[in-house]
């Protein structure tokens, strides 16, 4: 039985790698800003704090996730993205310009830059949604694709809310619904886009990579519907200023805790206990998600001011942990896959493309960064140390990616192909 999928679905390696290579560059930039301005970034609504938040969530997290989406849609969706190289080039360029403009607009309080950011970010994100979303409907359907749909719809709406807010910043005037808009913007961005996509990826890779027991079918089928309904009503409640909006946060929190518990159980009870740095990243990632939910929950109860910052930082570090863990798997796979597809006999094995020693060093730097960053919510000095180790971590990530690409190019030039034998 042939599965009916196109056999030439994988996009060229440059499509995904251009997004991945940009991730550490934005990471280094945000580390420098935090190192030089530790007092300012500790004030939640300070322009530099907003610049750093958007560099993290757009420049690092969204940049990596859109790159991964290009690969995932092509392989899992069964319907290749049309003109994938050209489209990836435009989206990456616009996204990059948009992120730099937005960070610059916040950091230097240059109001016209908000309009430039709104145009480029809005165009790139809505273009991604318009390009990939139609391919996720009407063809093959499985749980990961359902999650990808919700994630992309959430990203598009987050961008629309962001455009409206950017024009408010540009004009220096804020409407009565600004708070509702702001809360909806980050709820959809954090939960609808980042949280949902990571859960969708977990459903696909945890079972497949680590030979665990499968997630429950009921959970896989219904979790994205429950997220969608909760987010929809939360936004409705916010805009109509209705009471008890925390009920929807409670439902979302319960869903995320369910995901944490089921994932931790599967990873700790896997059949073969092979040491793998990506599993460490997954475990630390879901612990950070638990910290984020717990601190947000306690804040809703007692209103202690530093807790939302801890929740936001823990959530960002959760997403970063999963991204670093998955990049350590995806990048060697892409190099190996494209060389083998091209028929190279002497393709290096995946574990030699990013050696275990460098993966472990990346994990160690991540661990140091998260400890200093979380304790840095209270004191500037640990935050500066966190920025230093974060800078080192992103530099090592950049080095890993460049070395993997150099190995790829070296094999392309000097390798032996099937037909040469």
């Amino acid at each position, binding site marked *: 039985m042939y599965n009916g999928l196109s056999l030439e679905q994988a996009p060229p390696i440059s499509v995904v790698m251009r997004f991945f290579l940009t991730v550490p560059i934005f990471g280094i930039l945000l580390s420098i800003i935090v190192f030089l301005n530790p007092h300012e970034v500790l004030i939640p609504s300070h322009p530099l704090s907003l610049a750093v938040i958007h560099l993290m969530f757009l420049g690092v997290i969204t940049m990596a996730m859109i790159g991964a989406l290009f690969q995932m849609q092509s392989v899992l969706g069964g319907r290749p993205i049309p003109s994938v190289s050209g489209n990836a080039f435009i989206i990456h360029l616009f996204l990059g310009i948009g992120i730099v403009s937005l960070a610059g607009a916040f950091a230097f309080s240059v109001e016209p830059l908000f309009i430039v950011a709104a145009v480029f970010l809005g165009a790139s994100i809505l273009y991604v949604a318009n390009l990939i979303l139609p391919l996720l409907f009407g063809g093959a359907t499985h749980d990961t694709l359902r999650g990808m749909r919700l994630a992309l719809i959430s990203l598009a709406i987050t961008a629309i809310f962001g455009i409206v807010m950017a024009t408010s910043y540009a004009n220096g005037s804020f409407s009565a619904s600004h708070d509702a808009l702001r809360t909806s913007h980050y709820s959809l961005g954090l939960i609808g886009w980042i949280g949902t996509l990571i859960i969708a990826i977990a459903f696909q890779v945890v079972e497949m*990579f680590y030979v665990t027991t499968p997630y429950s079918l009921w959970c896989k089928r219904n979790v994205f519907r429950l997220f969608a309904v909760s987010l929809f009503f939360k936004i409705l409640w916010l805009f109509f200023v209705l009471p008890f909006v925390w009920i929807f946060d409670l439902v979302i929190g319960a869903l995320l805790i369910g995901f944490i518990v089921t994932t931790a159980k599967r990873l700790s009870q896997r059949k073969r206990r092979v040491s793998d740095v990506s599993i460490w990243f997954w475990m630390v990632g879901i612990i950070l998600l638990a910290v984020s939910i717990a601190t947000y929950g306690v804040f809703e109860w007692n209103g202690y001011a530093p807790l939302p910052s801890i929740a936001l930082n823990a959530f960002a570090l959760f997403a970063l942990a999963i991204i670093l863990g998955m990049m350590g798997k995806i990048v060697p796979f892409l190099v190996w896959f494209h060389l083998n597809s091209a028929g190279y006999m002497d393709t290096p094995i995946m574990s030699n493309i990013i050696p275990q020693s460098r993966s472990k060093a990346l994990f160690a730097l991540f661990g140091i960064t998260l400890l200093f960053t979380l304790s840095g919510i209270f004191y500037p000095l640990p935050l500066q140390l966190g920025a230093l180790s974060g800078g080192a971590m992103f530099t090592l990530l950049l080095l890993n990616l460049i070395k993997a690409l150099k190995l790829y190019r070296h094999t392309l030039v000097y390798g032996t192909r099937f037909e040469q034998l």
Partner: protein
Amino acid sequence: MILLDTRELDHPIPLEMVVDAFKKLSGDEVIHMIHRREPIPLFEIITKNGGRYLSTMERDDLWHIYITRSSTVELEHPHV
């Protein structure tokens, strides 16, 4: 028939094992891979390098994949 039962192996060992075996295939030899998933990326590597495959699902978590370089060998999954 070269049998590769990779059901209990972590990613990416199954893919590396089967591609390694495919590179060494000669004549009418056939690889029979038993896996817990349909290894979709494998098929592009096989077909781009002059191979053929047959992928059959027995259960959601049990797939049989037959691979050859021969253009004449008939690939079929025995129905028990």
